C-alpha cells in the first residue's frame, strides 16, 4: 500500500501542498484533497514541557485524494510531495516509509 509520510515537526504551514493538490484535482473553493490542521501556538504551563511553546501544522488527506495515481504511474512525485517547501513529505510503500520515522521528531503516516 502506498502512503504519504509527514515529518510534521518541520511543516511550516506554507499551503503549497494544499494549492498543488487543488490544482491537480481541479477542486473548487473550499474543497481540498489535502488540508492543513494547526495546533497552537500555546505555551505549556504544566508538565515536562512547562515554559515551552507548541505550534505545529499537520496536513491530512481528504476523500478526494487519489494519491496522484496518474502522476505516480508516470514516475512523478505526487503534486503535494513534489512542492512541499519544508521537505517534510515523502511518498512510497508504507513499509518503507515507516523506516524513516526516527523516534526524535514527529511523523504521521497518511493513507487513503
Amino acid at each position, binding site marked *: 500500500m502506498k502512503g504519504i509520510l509527514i515529518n510534521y515537526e*518541520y511543516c511550516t504551514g*506554507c*499551503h503549497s501542498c494544499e*494549492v498543488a493538490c487543488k490544482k491537480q484535482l481541479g477542486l473548487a473553493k473550499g474543497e481540498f484533497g489535502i488540508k492543513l490542521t494547526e495546533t497552537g501556538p500555546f505555551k505549556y504551563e504544566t508538565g515536562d514541557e512547562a515554559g515551552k511553546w*507548541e505550534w505545529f501544522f499537520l496536513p491530512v488527506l481528504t476523500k478526494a485524494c487519489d494519491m496522484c495515481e496518474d502522476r505516480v504511474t*508516470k514516475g512523478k*512525485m505526487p503534486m503535494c510531495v513534489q512542492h512541499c517547501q*519544508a521537505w*517534510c513529505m515523502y511518498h512510497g510503500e508504507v513499509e518503507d516509509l515507516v523506516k524513516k520515522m*526516527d523516534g526524535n521528531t514527529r511523523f504521521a503516516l497518511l493513507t487513503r
Partner: protein
Amino acid sequence: MADYKEFLDSIDRKAYHEGEIEWTEGEYTVTRTTHWSPPGCHNGCGVLLYTKDGKLEKVEGDPLNSVASGKLCMRCLAMPEAVNHPDRLKYPLRRVGERGENTWERISWDEAYDEITEKVLNIKKEFGSESIVVVHGTGRNIGWQVPYFASACMETPNVSTFGFNGFACYLPRMIGTTAKFGDMCLVDASQAHEDRYANEDWERPEVVVIWGNEPIKSNADAFLGHWLVLCHQMGTKIVSVDPRLTWWGVRADYWLPIRPGTDAVLAMAMLNVITTEDLIDHDFVELWCYGYEALVERVADKTPEWAAEVCGVNSEDIRGAARLIANAKNCAIQWGLAFEQQIAALGVTEAVADIMAITGNIDNPGGNMLARCAFLIEKRYGLGDHLIDPEVYARKLIPSVSGINESQIVSCADSDSILYAMETGEPYSVQMFWIQSSNALSCPGMDAPRVYQAMRKIPFVVVVDPFMTPTAVACADIVLPAAMSCERNSVRTWWTPVRSMKKVSEYYEARSDEQIVLDLGKRIKPENWPWETDEDFCTWYLTDQCAPNGTLYDKDFKTLVEQGGTEYWDWDATYRKYEKGMLRPDGSVGFNTPTGRVELWSYGFDSWGVDPLPFHIEPPESPVSTPKTYESFPLILSGGGRSFEFFHSEHRQLPSMREFHPDPLIMVHPDDAKTYNVSNDTWVWVENSRGARFKQKVLVTEQTKPGVVHAEHGWWFPEQEGAEPNLFGTFTSNLNNMTEAYRTGQGGIGSAIKSMLCKIYPVHEGDILPGDVVATKGTFHEYAPGQPYPLIEE
C-alpha cells in the same frame, strides 16, 4: 530527515526531463525556465510551464533546478490565475474622464508611444529632463531595465522606488556591509553551489539567528527561507529575535521578543557579552579586523541588564544567546527589513555586522558569505547614468545634507526629496511620473494620503502594470499593459545563479517591460538603444552593460535559455575570498575597504557623517520618548510582516490567495484583546495621535507579544469600486495612513515605521471611511508642504 542526495537520486529523470528545455506531454507543451515577475517575487525559481494553444494552463516546479528544487510556493502554483485573470489590462488606455473617475479609452501602442514621446520631448525642452521622475517597484525584475530607461531614454537621475523614506528597504544593510566588509553578505545556505547541500565545501550552520524577518514567508532579497528549514532539519539551532513568535521562535533555543525599534540595544549587549567574556575569534579579529578596541570601548557599558530595561528581553537570555552564537563553529545571521524600518537603521546594521565579524563568521562555510551578482552581471544600480548630462545629473533629488548621497554609494534619488519637490516646487517642479510596476499608493507610499495629494498634481503620469491599480486610477493619464513573467524574454541576476526567462505565451496586447522600454527608447533617444529585439537587449545586459571590458559573462541570451536558464558562478561559491586575494581590485589579500580589513570602526560611516560605531536611537514615538502619548495610545504598532499568499500589494485578485487569506489581519495578543474588548474576526480601527486610522480584522494570537499589535501592509480590494473616493479601498486598511514622510535616522537612512503608537477600537457601521476623509479633507492632519508633522510631544 530529508536527504538531498537521496532526493536527487530518487527523481525519475525520464518522467521529468533529461536536460531538454521544451517537450510535449499529452496535450501540453512544457517549457523549462525560471519565474521572476510579474506577478512579483524576489526569487526566480525553476518552473515547468504547461501551455496549450499558446495559453498557460498549469505550473509545476522543476525538481532538478537547484534554486528551489521544484518546491514552489502557493503563488507560483496559482500563476495561471494571475496570467489568465479577466481583470488584466489588455490594451493601452488613455484617460477620458477626470483623474480618479476610472474611465478610459482603448488606444493603440503607436498612439500611446506618440503621445508619450511628444510629452517627454516637450518636458525635456521646457523644464529639463530632471523634472521627470521614474518609479519602479521592488524585486519585480525591473531593477536593471527601468534604471537604464531612466538614464538612457528619459535622461533623468531621478529614479526611485518612490514612496517610502529613509531608503527603508535593504539599502541600509547593503551600504552598511559594503562600508564595513567591502562587500555585501548573506546567509550561506549552500545556495551558491549548484550541488547545494551535497557540496563538499559547505557545512550547515551550527546556529542561525533569524533577526527581524520571517524568511519562509518573505523570501526576501533572493533568499528562500525554506533553505533554512532544511538546515534546521540537519541540526542547525535557532535564535529568533522578533516581537512576534514565528515558526522559528517556537523551535528556537532562544526567542528574544524585543520591543520594536530597539534591536541595536540588544545587539550592543550581545557585543558586550562576547567581548567581556572573551568569546571572540582571536585570529580573525587580529588578522582581519580594524578598530576592535574602539568597539570594545563603545559597548563596555552596554550590559545585558542595561539592555533588558530598554528592549524588554530578559538579560540571561541575552547572555545565553550571545554565548550560543559566539561559541558555535559557524553562525549565520538572517537579518531582515526590521533593520531599516527603525530610526537607528545604520546603528543596528553596524552592531550586527560586528557580531558576525568578531565571532569569525564572515565568508566561512555556513556563515555569512560575501556575495556579488553572478559574473558581475548586475554591475551596479543606476545603469547608464553616465549617459545623463553631468549638469542634469547634479540636480538629482537628494537630501541637502547627507554625506551618503554625496558619496555616490546610493544611485537612486531620495523619496523625501522627491516628495519635497512635488509639494513645494523646490528645487524644481516635477512634471512627469513614469511608474513601472509600482502601486505607490497602496504599498510604499508614506503616508498614503499625502503621497496621493502630491501625485495627482503631477501634470503627466504614465503607469505600466498588468492590472488597473489604485495608483493608476488616481493619477495616470496613460496606462500600458505589462506582460507577465511567462510572456517575457528576460534575464536577471540577484546573487547567483544568473537566470533567464523564456516567453511561452501572450496576452492580448500586453508587452514585456523590456519591449516597452526598448520601443520608447528607440523613439525618444535612438542613439542609446541600438538593439533590434528584446533578446539582443538581454544579451547586452548579460555581457556588456556599457562597462569597460563588459561583464565576466560571454554567452548570449539564447544560449543561457537553452542550457536551462541558470548558470552558477564559482566566485560566489568560494569561501574565505579575503585570504585568496579575490576581493580587492589590486588582487592583494584582505577586504575591499580602506584599511583592507573588516572595519569595526568604519571609515565609510565616518565619511558619511554617521557614527562609525554601533548606536541606538529611541523611536520618535515610543513608551520612552513620548510617555504622555503612550498613555492614550498604549499599543506599539508594528507591521508589514509577510504572508504566504501575497507579495506586497500583488496577488489580491487571485481567487486561491483570497480563499486562504480573504481579509487584512491585525495580530492582537490575548491579554490585549481582553483589555480592549476585541475578539477574533472583529474589525478594529487602528488610530494614532494625529487621528489617522485604518481598519483590519483581529486575529487574537500569541504570535505577538503583549502590548504590541502587528498589522498587514499592501492591502487594496480589486473586487471593490475603483473610482474615487473608494479607489479599490486603498485607504481603508492601509497601514501607511499612519506612517510619515520627512523623519529619518542618521544620514537620512531608516524610518520608524515598525514602531509607532496606536490605540484600537471596534469598527461600527456607518463609521467614516479613510477614503472619505481623504476625499473631503485631503489628509487626516494638516501639514505644511515639505515639512514633517509636528511630533505630538515636541
